[in-house]
């Protein structure tokens, strides 16, 4: 556990303690908001985090080390390799704690992604679906906070995600969704989201990190100040990993610009081309 994490952990503990204090003094001014510089409130009492956010270091080529497709491309052209830290902050070694069989599959997927020989070798982003948590480490997103909900909207992939805060019951276990079934709550200026019912038929990055529909994700959106968001996702899947693990992505607030249409599937031809010859696929749409 590095120093930053300890600090954030410390703040989180302090916030939990403070929220208990505030709970005991309903109506008292909320010291937390002054402490971390987030004072605005939505009409329903949520900390007001509406606006546009973007990862400081975006990219979905790989999680470990954190690498974007663009930087991967640059590496191949220039031959200069710049190793970023892993996005994985727990375990401390930065590696996703795969079970042996899963580590083997993960290695195979990385070996295959450039020259796929089976449809499942093709990364899900190429097929125009990106889901949780992958959407939080590359594109710009907007937060909307209607009463009782936090809504995330991405212009890329026209993705959206609605997180109810009302503690409603979970969906039936047989319902699997690309975005999963999310339930959120505010702990001070941290939004905690617990997600189940994940379809999990996609990947965490281009090189093939993955989980199954058995996975549960606990995300913490830590609004450090009005312009800074620390995103953490802890993923638990006993079918794939030896223990829960956590990735972290720092975001900053961006100017509120209009979101314009970003259609993907409508013009998508790459997957068909890249899969030419796979299982009789002719490459025709």
């Amino acid at each position: 556990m590095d120093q930053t994490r300890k600090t954030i952990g410390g703040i989180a503990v302090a916030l939990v303690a403070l929220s208990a204090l505030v709970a005991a003094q309903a109506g008292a001014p909320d010291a937390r908001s002054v402490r971390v510089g987030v004072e605005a409130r939505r009409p329903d009492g949520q900390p007001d985090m509406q606006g546009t956010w973007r990862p400081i270091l975006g990219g979905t080529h790989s999680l470990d080390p954190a690498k974007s497709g663009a930087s991967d491309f640059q590496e191949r052209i220039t031959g200069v390799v710049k190793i970023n830290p892993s996005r994985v902050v727990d375990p401390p070694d930065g590696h996703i704690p795969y079970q042996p069989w899963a580590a083997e599959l993960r290695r195979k997927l990385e070996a295959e992604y450039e020259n796929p020989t089976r449809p499942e070798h093709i990364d899900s982003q190429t097929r125009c679906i990106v889901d949780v948590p992958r959407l939080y480490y590359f594109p710009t997103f907007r937060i909307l906070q209607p009463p009782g909900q936090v809504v995330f909207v991405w212009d890329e992939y026209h993705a959206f995600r609605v997180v109810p805060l009302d503690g409603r019951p979970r969906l039936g276990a047989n319902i699997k969704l690309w975005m999963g079934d999310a339930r959120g709550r505010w702990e001070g200026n941290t939004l905690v989201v617990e997600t189940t019912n994940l379809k999990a038929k996609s990947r965490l990055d281009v090189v093939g990190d993955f989980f199954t529909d058995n996975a549960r994700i606990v995300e913490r959106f830590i609004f450090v100040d009005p312009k800074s968001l620390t995103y953490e996702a802890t993923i638990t899947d006993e079918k794939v990993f030896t223990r829960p693990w956590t990735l972290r992505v720092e975001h900053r607030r961006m100017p509120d610009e209009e979101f314009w249409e970003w259609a993907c599937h409508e013009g998508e031809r790459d997957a068909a081309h890249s899969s030419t010859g796979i299982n009789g696929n002719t490459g025709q749409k």
Partner: protein
Amino acid sequence: MPRRLRLGIGSLLYVGVAVAFSYAPARAQSGIPRTPDGRPDLSGIWQAFGTANDNLLPHSASKDVPAGLGVVEGGEIPYRPEALARRQENFANRATRDTEAHCYLPGVPRITYMGFPFQIVQMPDATTILYEYVHAVRHIYTNGTPHPPGPIEWWMGDSRGRWEGDTLVVDVVHFTPNTWFDRTGNYHSEALHVVERYTLMDPNTIAYEATIEDPQVFTRPWTLRMLLYRRVEPNVALLDYDCYAFEWEKYYPYPGL
């Protein structure tokens, strides 16, 4: 936490108000939910029911399609003579030519009556609509900004809204010529101009109309009308219908799982 408690009570009050109204008056009136800035509050999950996506015009029943009264004012779409031939050709080739068969973004107004629920998130500067169908999203800017200069061809067009009294009026331009209005091949060109009107008639009903103007295809503007119903079931939520991914679901999960 107190905040969660307040949220819970707020939601209960809201549902209580919504349930108290059970009839639909003929026009917009005062007993409707409103936002803090006094506008009618369209927020919530809505759905159109009926057979508009099968056929906008009055039609008999056929396999898997109930009969329908039609939603077009006057019961006919005023095609230019040369455009009518294209519409008939579309109908003959509808199984492959309709972009719905490819799960493409269906355009406006068709997205409204695809038959799937959608959620309106209304804010002062923009109203965002989240659609369960292929997770389409529209941002309807209501901050007085104009359409960006074209030519632009977007599947869902560019939407700019304004309030006329208690009606949200949305002007939509910059379309691709690829989408249709229904499964029978009713179509438009890239010159399509749509004006939608959303009027809350009571807490659970929106009167929806869309006026279609496209001088390349039609001899005059024409209008379709339908009601949008609030989904009032407890815990109703948008699920997903990512039809373009159905085919490749069979490739996953990964072998060995």
